[in-house]
């Protein structure tokens, strides 16, 4: 028989950086889950993306066991990575944030397609470009569609 689900917990945690502190500690701890076990697993599974913000959905079962799914980094996080690469500085400049191009927008749209509820790559690209605008990043060049 399938295990009975107690709750879902949605968080965003940096790769390799889960520790038994808030919000993981209080959220999982209150459900009687062994937090140390979650942290060890999460950190091992995200060790190739250290420091990158990753959405994680944790399913907690009534028997206090758990499962979790790690999603691809949010479009905004990926956009910021590209913008930083371009500006060549690890610290984004205060005034000139940097830019990305449409090829990069497409690359992110392709990765995020499954999460975005979009039927076409163009609509996914529009959403990613919208995210770029919302965070003050300019998309360079002519819109390809």
């Amino acid at each position, binding site marked *: 028989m399938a295990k009975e689900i107690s709750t879902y917990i949605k968080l965003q945690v940096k790769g390799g950086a889960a520790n038994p502190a808030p919000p993981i500690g209080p959220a999982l*701890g209150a459900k009687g889950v062994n*937090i140390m076990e979650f942290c060890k697993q999460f950190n091992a599974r995200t060790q190739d993306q250290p420091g990158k913000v990753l959405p994680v959905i944790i399913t907690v079962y009534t028997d206090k066991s758990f499962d979790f799914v790690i999603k691809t980094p949010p479009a905004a996080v990926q956009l910021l990575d590209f913008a930083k690469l371009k500006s060549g500085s690890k610290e984004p400049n205060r005034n000139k944030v940097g830019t990305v191009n449409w090829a990069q927008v497409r690359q992110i749209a392709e990765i995020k397609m499954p999460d975005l509820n979009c039927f076409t790559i163009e609509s996914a690209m529009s959403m990613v470009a919208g995210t770029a605008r*919302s965070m003050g990043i300019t998309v360079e060049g002519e819109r390809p569609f």
Partner: protein
Amino acid sequence: MDYLEVRFYNDVSLNEALIAWLGESDFQMFEEHEDGISAFIPEQDYKEEKVAELIRHIPGNENIRFEKSFIKDRNWNKEWESNFEPVTISDILYVRAPFHKAAKNGLREIVIEPKMSFGTGHHATTALMIELMAEPDFKGKSVLDMGCGSGVLAIFAKQLEADDVLAVDIDDWSIENTRENCLRNQAPSIRIQKGDVNVLGKEHFDFILANINRNVLLNDLNVYCSVLKSGGSLLISGFLTEDIDLLVEKASTFGLKKETEKRKEAWAALRFIK
């Protein structure tokens, strides 16, 4: 460690942008809400001017407001720790809490009251380390336990009649917990030190135990090797089976030869000899 929750109130469409920008600082974890986000950071790392500077990138930032709340450090794992099952590891060792009955049939036992520290015997990596430790002779040897957590491996080394044991961890809870568990298991002579490989001096060891994670191990292998006696053993775990080759290769560049490999579930453990 005490934490701050910084609760941002903003249009939900800005949640993603905010998380991305705040991720550029020392905020480690985030939670999304319908009217904003919560961002979490160790209180000692919080810098208000850094937050203001990051938010300034976002168009319409004048409508974002935030408030901070202080979250005092406490044992968040208490609920699980108050009611877990004892573990028998491969007929070698019985690990239990103070509230469990003592081991039957005279099996060697360690009593652990974990308090938000790793090492209750439940995790595959702890079991693998115990199994690796059961093979060589620890009698009269010197042992270093890096990332000691609950202190379970250091205590086990002492039970195997190791002479001198040093337990090291970066985490306050682990240091305190190792101290308590050493006393609880009649192993008061174990030396305990807070820190990482930088606290290691000129002392050399016959055995080094390190159940940590792949990235820390890769980074610190050279230091372990430098404080390991010639002919001594390095026992590591905390990594996945897919990372075995990478670790074996890196260790070989420091003259460490793989002696034993063990696997359990997705996890692995290795013993090297210098």
